[in-house]
């Protein structure tokens, strides 16, 4: 059961590092990298999802953790720099 009404909650935190560990649990369970999974998720690749038995809730959670991890770790920024370098 969660904290009782009126009782102060114990504060917990997450970081890019802890999200990375969470992504690792998904990757281990479903046998694919988070980047491959996310590409399939965004493309509605149902055969990839259903074929691996990834539940709807896990799909949603994995994708949202991955997006947050990219934002918090600066991966999105790094990808922008990489694209600029390739375009130059």
């Amino acid at each position, binding site marked *: *059961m969660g904290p009782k009404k009126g009782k102060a909650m114990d504060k917990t935190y997450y*970081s890019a590092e802890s999200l990375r560990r969470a992504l690792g649990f998904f990757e281990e369970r479903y046998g694919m990298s988070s980047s491959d999974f996310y590409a399939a998720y965004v493309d509605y690749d149902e055969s990839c999802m259903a074929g691996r038995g990834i539940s709807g809730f896990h799909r949603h959670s994995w994708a949202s953790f991955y997006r947050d991890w990219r934002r918090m770790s600066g991966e999105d920024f790094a990808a922008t720099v990489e694209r600029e370098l390739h375009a130059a």
Partner: protein
Amino acid sequence: MDIWEYFQQRDREVAEQSAAWDDDLGQPYAEEQGSNGQRGRIFGRVVLSEHAFLAVNEAVEVQGSGVTRSVYAYYLVYDGVELCGEERDPTHTPPVHRHDRNHKRYPSSVISFKEALTRAWAMLAAEEELRTYDTQEPRQPEES
């Protein structure tokens, strides 16, 4: 408002509907490090019965007195099977949608956590009634 006030509110909503977070999974609430109490996540299971729970994933941002759930998923799971799910995900079309037990997607409206929990209870009651009916012995015709 900060994220912890929002979490406290969520906790009250769970308790008010005679449900509880799954203790075995640990604390469902977490603040994003470095966000100064403005961003956080809820991830866990609200136990509804021996057989059912509501799986919850939310990414939340507080701005002033307002709260935005940029992402949410509420899935009713019965004996390991997802009976239905409500989602908001900006990468999908439409972003707000519902899934049935075959994970087929339908457009939906934004739903509050409280409403999702209320619907989950109703659906659970219907599912359990259906299962009870299915397991009953066929009634024999009465002798005249």
